[in-house]
């Protein structure tokens, strides 16, 4: 059973057991526009909750992507190197950024549910 949570920085995180898959939301992808480059963390890197983990660049600007939850990076999406446009095409699916091994499952509780995030975006 997987569970998806969201941050106010517009990242999503899918929890499967002790693995978290992280990406940016559809809203974030739309705001950024065409993604032309993604810098992803290497496997083995440890990131804390809210720490800078990746960078996403559109034609216009670069934006940081923060880790919604702390842990050790286990994989980065290899497809984004060749085809960063996947982030726009399928931000909450094939356009995922990286996976990590969750350090502290308790941190999930601080994140927004889908309903909370949708309401948050509506208020922007």
């Amino acid at each position: 059973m997987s569970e998806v949570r969201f941050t106010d920085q517009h990242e999503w995180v899918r929890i499967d057991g002790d693995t978290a898959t992280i990406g940016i939301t559809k809203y974030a992808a739309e705001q950024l526009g065409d993604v032309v480059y993604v810098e992803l963390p290497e496997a083995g890197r440890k990131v804390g909750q809210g720490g800078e983990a990746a960078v996403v660049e559109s034609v216009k600007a670069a934006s940081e992507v923060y880790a919604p939850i702390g842990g050790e990076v286990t994989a980065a999406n290899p497809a984004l190197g060749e085809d960063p446009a996947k982030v726009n095409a399928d931000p909450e699916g094939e356009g995922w950024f990286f996976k990590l091994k969750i350090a502290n499952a308790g941190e999930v509780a601080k994140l927004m549910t889908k309903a909370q995030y949708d309401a948050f975006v509506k208020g922007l």
Partner: protein
Amino acid sequence: MTDTANENLQRTPLYALHLELGGKMVPFAGYEMPVQYPTGILKEHLHAREKAGLFDVSHMGQAFLAGDNPGKALERVTPADVQSLKDGMQRYGLLLNDSGTIKDDFMFSRLAGERDMYLVVNAGTKDGDYKYIADRLKGAATVTTRFDRALLALQGPMAGKVLDRVSPGIDKLTFMKVVRATVANAPAIVSRSGYTGEDGFEISIEGKDAERVARALLKEPEVAPIGLGARDSLRLEAGLCLYGHDIDETTDPVEASLVWSIGKRRKMDKDFPAAEKIMDAVFTGTKRKRIGILPVGKAPAREGTEIADKNGRVIGKITSGGFGPSLNGPMAMGYVETAFANDGTEIDLMVRGKALPARVAPMPFVPHRYRRPV
């Protein structure tokens, strides 16, 4: 984030049309301008290179310069050869301050049979520019600003074919020619020029005609509206300077690699602001030089990025940088110490604490396709 509700921002005559087209409005040079339309920067950019793009550049500063010999008078503030400009031609020039650094860059035109010259300066500098010009030309020429006029740019390989439909015969113009013409029944000043590296036109019309003319052009199947985002990536691919970024009052024409815009006669006569200093620099060289940069990898390096030599010593800074949709890769422009300014020189770009390898590269990054006379 951008505040589009800012009351101090001005609007061009096409503001309502931008909203109707779904333009994402941002503050730019004191105006609310569309940074992109729903199509997005990448596709807008490619559209302008493949077909024809319509740009609202009405925020730019249009004016007429009157006097017995306005061209001669204008040479007080620019090193361009204004006097030799033939009837029906447009030219690029630099506006210099007394210390010989760049106050602005601008276009000047001599319309056939008219004594007044027609000028277009940058949006963010227009008030100061025309105050300066009026002041320096006092007694010889007078400035009449026409910030109420609209200016449209139609750019791309199909621009000639498209504009000819609403302004028959206009496609006969060649690069840097300018005429008074009728565009979609509106009186216009049309030049075959632009700032994308593509063939194209700039169309100056009365503000009241702007929306109707824009709609007439947008109705043509080849034409799509293009925002500021793609305007910036197009001009950077074309190796063209953006005032306030690549050139400003801290740069002179020599280090900016814009000596070509100084007229031969002007170089001999040395009768422009700080001419001695600038001509000395032409012969002895400058400490730094504006160059093109191609990163080796895929990561873009943005404005402000430090440039280092291979030993990690900082040798310059990027003044414009991003991703080139037609180039399909990152590109940048910046200044480096002159010893590193040769094409092919290996440099590093300090992006997020990492040294990304790059090379000094010739510009334009994408070849110009101007309609030059045969």
